[in-house]
């Protein structure tokens, strides 16, 4: 038995344990290998998130419900990861007495620490979760405006779907807690820090990282759409944003008129007119012909358009969102039009 195996058997800290694998996998894996695996998991979570429209749009955030180009989803994961690296590495350099601190260890362990969000992306794929999310969005007007709004405010989700939704939310919260624990452990371990200094500096770094991530998203928006109201980045109206909408619901006229004009143009089969108020990104993403096709599909499924019914306007995360209930021959359908501050259409969704 050589000196190394002697040391391994003599040092209890080197024995493999399940708890260590779960909460400090960095004991066994860091640096380049962790970076490769972690980055692959971040991209996988983003691509799966694209299927369920789950955005990881912040160091710790996740929201479900907003369609966007597929590449946005993995890009969000990479931005979240990188945004936290800079403050963590600087804090580590500042506070750690270790001489061997390596950037690649901070990069690799933090990438690996985001692995639990792969489970969140998978949980959001469950059909019951998605149906319940849609039902909650349907109920948004009632929650925002109170009883008597006239819009479909009843939560019509099937009990089984609700159970799946609750289970998925609980699992997602557990994954969030696990991820934060891993992120802290990754930071403390890769920078060899412990105690109150490690905890406080980690919290500060997360806050700074969150700000950097949001700033990066807005920079990305500017690059894609020329202004931060691009269609792909309009706010998701999801269960997590209902509160925000409810607290700021208003009945301003201009956005509602923009939405009404668009729908009236579609009703006249004037797709070119319907896209007239689109912003630059919407014009690129949705041509008049494509919009015409969507409208025809809508009529095929729900019968011919008959008339506009009630509309509801609310502010969600600074955006004007107009929900217009329309009567089709078979059933009413709610259309969501997102209007930018400049009065341009920056998002269109069928509820």
């Amino acid at each position, binding site marked *: 038995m050589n*000196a*190394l195996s*002697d*040391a*391994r058997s*003599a*040092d209890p*800290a*080197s024995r493999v344990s399940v708890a260590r694998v779960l909460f400090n996998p*960095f*004991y*066994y*894996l*860091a*640096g380049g290998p*962790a970076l490769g695996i972690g980055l692959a998991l971040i991209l996988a979570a983003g691509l799966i998130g694209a299927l369920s429209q789950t955005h990881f749009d912040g160091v710790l955030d996740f929201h479900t419900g907003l369609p966007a180009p597929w590449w946005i989803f993995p890009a969000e994961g990479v931005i979240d990861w990188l945004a936290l690296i800079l403050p963590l590495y600087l804090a580590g350099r500042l506070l750690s*007495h*270790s001489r*061997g601190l*390596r950037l690649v*260890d901070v990069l690799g*362990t933090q990438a690996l620490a985001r692995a639990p969000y792969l489970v969140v992306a998978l949980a959001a794929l469950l059909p019951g979760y998605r149906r319940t999310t849609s039902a909650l969005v349907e109920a948004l007007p009632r929650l925002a405006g109170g009883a008597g709004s006239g819009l479909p405010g009843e939560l019509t989700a099937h009990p089984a779907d609700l159970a799946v939704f609750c289970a998925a939310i609980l699992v997602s919260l557990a994954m969030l807690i696990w991820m934060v624990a891993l992120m802290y452990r990754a930071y403390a*371990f*890769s920078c*060899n820090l412990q105690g109150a200094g490690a905890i406080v500096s980690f919290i500060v770094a997360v806050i700074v990282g969150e700000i950097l991530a949001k700033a990066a998203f807005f920079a990305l928006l500017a690059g894609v759409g020329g202004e931060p109201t691009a269609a792909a980045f309009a706010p998701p109206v999801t269960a997590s944003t209902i509160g925000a909408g409810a607290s700021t619901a208003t009945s301003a006229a201009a956005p509602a008129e923009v939405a009404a004009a668009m729908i009236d143009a579609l009703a006249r089969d004037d797709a070119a007119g319907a896209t007239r108020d689109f912003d630059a990104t919407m014009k690129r993403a949705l041509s008049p012909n494509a919009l015409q096709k969507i409208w025809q599909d809508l009529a095929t499924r729900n019968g011919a358009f008959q008339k506009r019914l009630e509309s509801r306007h609310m502010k969600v995360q600074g955006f004007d969102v107009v929900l217009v209930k329309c009567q089709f021959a078979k059933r009413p359908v709610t259309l969501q039009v997102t209007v930018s501050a400049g009065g341009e259409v920056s998002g269109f969704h069928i509820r």
Partner: protein
Amino acid sequence: MEKKLPNVCPSCGRGLTVRRFECERCGTSVEGAFGLPLLARLSPVDQTLVVSLIKASGSLKELARQYGVSYPTVRNRLDELIGRIEKLESEPIEGGLK
């Protein structure tokens, strides 16, 4: 059976000193109060780590590979060891041998 060199008093925990050396061939003995060298005052596990590090030519990467752990694990372990050595260096030694 390999005997381990005791470097700490089992009663009070203080570092031990050597009182007597003896030549096994001719029986000559030397008595006095000799402090243990610094490396001998480390725990057996720490001594093994030092030996392993020397054998790995000082490469933490190589040591991590041999132990089956990550680089930060070995580096943190070495940081602990450095702390213990610095503490031992600051402690007075009876006999004056360092």
